[in-house]
């Protein structure tokens, strides 16, 4: 009886638990710790409105007299108490960090998504179609690679800011940031996907699909894309860390998130002005958080690259 029974397909969860990836994950302490840090930080950002004692983005609730309160001490004028102190405008640093991290993560995720979609589409087209399509796309990519990404991002940010009506600039700043970072980052996706596509398009299963008469775009999406996604995933993870840092850099330079809606980079910019005067907490906490976030994501990306690389197994 038992041997006649068709074994039930393992559930998704079971498949994930039995995968090589999970095996590797449970045996890599660095990956576990990094994942834990990322999860805690992302959850904290997502739940910011529930956790944060103040809403730093509502300027009407700020009291300037609370400015420069040290962490864990009561303010000399108002008697208010703040866990991690306040910044120069009387914003609670803890709340501002949570809300700022939302901006940093949102910009980071969205920018990577944008870069990934643009890069994967262009890479697939270039790799599969070849000819002038490939030359055009890859030469544009080469040209863009000759500029540092942060310069490209600043250029795009400057142009986009110039054409947005001033009244909408603050609301648009976040989207403009996403556009700027996303468009400065698509090249590496395109290059990797094109390379992988060049390999895959000569495999038998693609030839078979072609013989059957599947349309070009159908082959690209249904057959090639799933097989080039592994490296894309690795790049996306590492790009996420870079995008978060790029956002912080832009905001630090004063061209990113508006000062009234600070991201982690804006907070670091504000904090470094008070470095010499003893108000260390404005700089230290956001900088530490940014470091933890970027480092954990980067370590996760490294682990993912090793785990997905067949040669390293």
């Amino acid at each position, binding site marked *: 009886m038992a041997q006649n029974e068709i074994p039930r397909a393992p559930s998704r969860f079971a498949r994930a638990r039995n995968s090589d990836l999970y095996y590797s994950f449970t045996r890599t302490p660095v990956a576990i710790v990094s994942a834990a840090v990322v999860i805690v930080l992302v959850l904290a950002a997502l739940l910011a409105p529930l956790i944060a004692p103040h809403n730093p983005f*509502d*300027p*009407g609730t*700020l*009291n*300037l*007299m609370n*400015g*420069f309160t040290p962490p864990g001490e009561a303010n000399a*004028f108002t008697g208010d108490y703040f866990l991690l102190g306040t910044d*120069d*405008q*009387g914003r609670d640093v803890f709340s501002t960090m949570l809300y700022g991290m939302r901006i940093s993560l949102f910009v980071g995720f969205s920018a990577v998504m944008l870069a990934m979609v643009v890069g994967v589409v262009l890479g697939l087209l270039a790799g599969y179609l070849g000819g002038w399509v490939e030359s055009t796309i890859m030469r544009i990519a080469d040209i863009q690679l000759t500029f540092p990404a942060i310069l490209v991002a600043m250029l795009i940010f400057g142009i986009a800011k110039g054409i947005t009506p*001033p*009244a909408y*600039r*603050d609301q648009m700043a976040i989207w403009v940031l996403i556009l700027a970072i996303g468009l400065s980052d698509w090249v590496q996706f395109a290059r990797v996907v094109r390379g992988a596509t060049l390999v895959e398009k000569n495999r038998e299963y693609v030839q078979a699909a072609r013989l059957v008469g599947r349309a070009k775009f159908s082959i690209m999406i249904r057959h090639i894309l799933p097989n080039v996604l592994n490296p894309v995933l690795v790049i996306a993870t590492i790009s996420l860390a870079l995008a978060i840092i790029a956002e912080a850099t832009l905001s630090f330079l*004063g061209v990113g998130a*508006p*000062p*009234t809606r600070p991201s982690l980079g804006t907070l670091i910019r504000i904090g*470094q*002005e*008070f*470095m*010499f*005067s003893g*108000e260390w907490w404005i700089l230290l906490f956001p900088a530490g958080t940014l470091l933890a976030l970027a480092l954990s994501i980067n370590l996760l990306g490294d682990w993912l690259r090793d785990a997905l690389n067949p040669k390293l197994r």
Partner: protein
Amino acid sequence: MKITGFLAAALLSSTALGASAETIRWARAGDSLTLDPHAQNEGPTHALSHQIYEPLIIRDTTGAFEPALATDWAPSEEDPNVWVFNLRDGVTFHDGAEFTAEDVVFSFERAMSEESDMKELLNSITEIRAVDDHTVEFVTDGPNPILPSNMTNLFIMDKGWAEANDAVGVQDYEGGEQTFASTNANGTGPFVLQSREPDVRTVLTRNDDYWGTSDFPMDVSEIVYTPIQNAATRVAALLSGEVDFIQDVPVQDLGRVGETDGLAVKSTPQNRTIFFGLNLGADDLANDDVEGENPLANKKVRQAMNMAINRDAIKKVVMRDQSEPAGMIAPPFVNGWTEEMDNSVSTDVEQAKALMEEAGYGDGFSIQLDCPNDRYINDEAICQAAVGMLAQIGITVNLDAKPKAQHFPLISNEETDFFMLGWGVPTYDSEYVFNFLVHTKGDDRGSWNALGYSNPELDEKIQSLASETDLEVRDQTIADIWSVVQDDVLYIPVHHQVLNWGMTDAVGTEVDPEDSPKFKYFEMN
């Protein structure tokens, strides 16, 4: 013993030689906007020009007149409408050309031309006559007792040099024009321009042919001027010895700089008031969310905004006590200032909300605030604080902070609805404030009035100030004008600045209340 003796000898010889080769490395937040001395009436621009060019008269650090290119001046005995200036003999420009009355006539006519940013100071002048090579007469459209005080930032250029280099016309700064005179300089001043890279580095060397070489210390032989916008970087540069003198020590670092061995901070109240301007004259604003009407045109809204600003909190937290809350847009140095007007506003959020309600804006509105980020002490932080304070009465403010080189053209071109501005009064008289900021914007007055405000009755009174000889009547007119400016809430005053200069012990100078260091007075130890 030997070593001590040697050191003492070395010290003696160095003092005996005078500080013959002393470089001073000077930094401040922003750069001069242009070298054309008549194109921008702006503090840091004049501060650099004062080293290269000279006016007829300057002020010393106490605010008193001191002769520069003029040796003495007096109203004419025959005609009360004429001032006679005797010019200094034997002065040459840096290129060797001789300084004569021709150059004075040329420079003043240039400064009175349409494109000039200095014309408001000279609008009472109808004619300038060169009587001989070293005497000039200024004819005014009525007796003008305070004409000399309008001349302390009016620099004299060489007529021949300007003509030869196609620089007779004043540079159109707002229009983005570059001329020979905006990138080169040829003055009579104590220092000669060696090289200049705007916003990066400007080098000046001592003019050994300067007429005043024996009258002033003239210890500085070379000036290296580097604008450093970032406050922390600027302080770090002073602490680490990269610069010798910074003009704007950030208020949060005063303690640290003052306590560091070998460094000193010197402070003085500055002749400058920081305030917000409102576009109250337009029918509709470009940068708000109210359609078809201008909320700022409503006096109650302006009063509410004025009451919403908590000046004491700004003083305590943003300025760390380095400011004096202001109720009017002129500092106590100025003739016409009264304690009563300066104390006239108090913060009252509840009453401000009630006023907004009465004005029909109980639900508030949104507007853009344009703010510089490298001009005044903590300018951007003050604007941010104002964003929070105005939010409490329902006004959503979108803050756009940018470098002054982009900010000031918005004001001159009336492209802003709500802006921060600071105004110093080099003439020490209210007329200067009225001419630039209150008079209807026109050909010869009101060039910094970006309010769209026009009050013909007031304009007439302002014009009468230039020729009123009875000082009591004049002071009464000034008081009358101020009462309108105050009642109509044309501007929202914030505070009078306090200057904090940071320097190494080697640098010896008093703080200039106009924030314009004149290096010929500096003593280097």
